[in-house]
């Protein structure tokens, strides 16, 4: 923690509540700009519901395309929050403090966005309720619990509910700070939202225990969610390239890779927009980059295992699919871009300390990873379906329609707009965690140098 700054609580409140107690000049035009894109996206959804799925590029035999790719992508991004927040809390990693809330927030909003895609992909979203809720007593038709398409809503619903509650519990002390700094309707809002938080020892103790207990509960959910998403594909025996036992851990590790990269992107943006140089420091990017190297190498291992077990069997359809993915136009171009952006460019760069401590470099390499990880999901889903299957007698190639690209753009604008709206009303960096770090850290003199030391309670 060489870059630690000593700050008093007044300064911490002032700097971290800058966006809540006053409105930065860029905030309103940015939110309005994003709102235009969001409204455009909702219009596209309306057109699709009105005209039918024919306005997309989906066609026999490719029934899952950009919507499902984007669904898996956003579920993957959501894995950042719990991975970062829960694991770092459980291990009491000191550098977690400015990272946790942004990561938890990204989980909630990306899951919320992911949920849209299977809904709109259904063409008639309201009919999804027939699949997942046992309400059609009149006709005696009930959900089929044996279908992975029913497992998904349970997994994502659990993860979204749990993540939202996790985020809220950790917000309580900061809502108390906002209550004390506001007047009028805002004061009333924060009084109710903070539930009357006062900051006595009982509440602080429960807050500490809650962080650890909820982390321990959320981690198994985090692993299960992307495993279940992967089973949407892996339990389908008829599509070559999908029916793989390695899919669950492969998807989970891939999700962590893209999710942690998204946290890096978000932290760089937060530092630039709000000028939080004292809180989000190069050392945090350095730590995240080290974590990313480990995750990316594990992900590469799974990618290799998935590929090698596919081709080693020497089954003709499997080999033909891999040949198509890697050597046939245009999949070969996408495959090269995917591999370069998801691994070959960013990971070797992260080996250099100068890159890890350069926020602009970390920002751009993390963006590259997510371009690559989106393409990875596209390359898993679409080529697998594009090959002729038994009992498929008509088929066409899949061309992504402008409407689908529009809805992909909508998803990014939607997440960014939700983030900015949240940032107006709630602090993006946990104030109490930052203050706790100041209380529990002190400088000790060792020989001729002063070293920061973290004091930890025996529990």
């Amino acid at each position, binding site marked *: 923690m060489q870059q630690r700054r000593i700050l*008093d*609580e*007044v300064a911490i409140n002032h700097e971290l509540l800058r966006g809540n107690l006053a409105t930065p000049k860029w905030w309103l035009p940015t939110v309005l700009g994003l709102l235009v894109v969001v409204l455009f996206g909702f219009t596209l959804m309306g057109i699709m519901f009105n005209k039918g799925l024919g306005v997309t590029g989906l066609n026999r035999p490719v029934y899952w395309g950009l919507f499902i790719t984007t669904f898996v992508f956003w579920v993957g991004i959501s894995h950042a929050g719990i991975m970062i927040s829960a694991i770092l809390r459980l291990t009491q990693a000191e550098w977690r403090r400015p990272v946790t809330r942004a990561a938890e927030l990204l989980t909630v909003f990306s899951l919320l966005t992911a949920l849209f895609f299977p809904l709109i992909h259904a063409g008639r979203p309201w009919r999804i309720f027939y699949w997942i809720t*046992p309400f059609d007593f009149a006709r005696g038709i*009930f*959900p*089929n*619990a*044996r*279908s992975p398409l*029913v*497992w998904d809503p*349970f*997994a994502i*619903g*659990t993860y979204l*509910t*749990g993540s939202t*509650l*996790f985020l*809220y*519990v950790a917000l*309580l*002390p900061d809502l*108390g*700070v906002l209550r*004390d*700094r506001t007047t009028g309707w805002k004061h009333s809002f924060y*009084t*109710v939202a903070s*539930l*009357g*938080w*006062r*900051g*006595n*020892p*009982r*509440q*602080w*103790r*429960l*807050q500490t*225990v*809650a962080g650890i*207990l*909820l982390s321990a*509960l*959320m981690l*198994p*959910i985090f692993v*299960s969610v992307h495993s*279940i998403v992967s089973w949407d594909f892996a339990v389908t025996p008829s599509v070559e390239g999908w029916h793989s036992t390695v899919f669950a851990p492969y998807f989970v590790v891939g999700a962590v890779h893209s999710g942690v990269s998204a946290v890096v992107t978000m932290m760089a943006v937060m530092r630039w927009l709000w000028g939080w140089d004292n809180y989000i420091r190069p050392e945090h990017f350095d730590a995240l980059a080290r974590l990313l190297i480990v995750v990316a190498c594990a992900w590469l291992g799974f990618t290799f295992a998935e590929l090698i077990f596919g081709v080693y069997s020497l089954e003709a359809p499997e080999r033909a699919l891999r040949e198509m993915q890697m050597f046939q136009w245009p999949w070969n171009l996408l495959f090269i871009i995917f591999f370069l952006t998801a691994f070959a460019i960013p990971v070797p760069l992260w080996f250099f300390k100068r890159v890890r401590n350069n926020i602009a470099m970390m920002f751009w390499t993390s963006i590259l990873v997510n371009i690559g990880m989106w393409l990875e999901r596209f390359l898993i889903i679409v080529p697998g379906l594009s090959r002729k299957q038994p009992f498929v007698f008509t088929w066409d190639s899949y061309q992504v329609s402008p409407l689908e690209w529009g809805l992909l753009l909508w998803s990014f604008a939607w997440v960014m707009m939700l983030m900015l709206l949240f940032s107006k009303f709630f602090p993006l960096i946990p104030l*109490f965690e930052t*203050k*706790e770090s*100041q*209380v*529990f850290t002190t400088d000790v003199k060792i020989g001729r140098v002063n070293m920061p030391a973290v004091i930890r*309670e025996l529990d």
Partner: protein
Amino acid sequence: MAASNSVLGLYDTPDAGANAMDGLKSAGFALGTFDVLTGTPYPEGAFGEHVPQHRLFRFPFFGAMVGITLAILFTAGTQLAYPVVTGGKPILAVFAMLIIAYELTMLGAVIATVVGIIFESRLPNLNLGAYDARITEGYIGIVVECEDDKVEEARGVLQTAGALEIKTA
């Protein structure tokens, strides 16, 4: 009978706050009638305060039980109510049931834990009593809950310990 007055002393250092807590103990105020309010989590016992006990760990078990019960009712009930064999799988396919049961068990545990955190933190309690916004700026608040006849004594103890300001509510 619940105390009708709340007296708050405000201090600018943790040491002064700890002295006030010692003073209240010496003056015979019962444990649990006075408390320390801070804007930062301090190490346990930093103010010589009463360390509270909690039963939070019971909540997730209760929630998990409710969750798994609902999951079994949902999966078994819906499949038995509409017993169509699909893909050659049994009507009650244990693997599929386990996945939904796992998710609902965890969901029940998380919801019950959050309810437990709020309940054990004695929230919601929108009546803050004697309170000062400076507590969330680094000041230490020592709050005493007492009857009318003890208010002056509490104020005296807090003042002696060097309170910057004393408030009564």
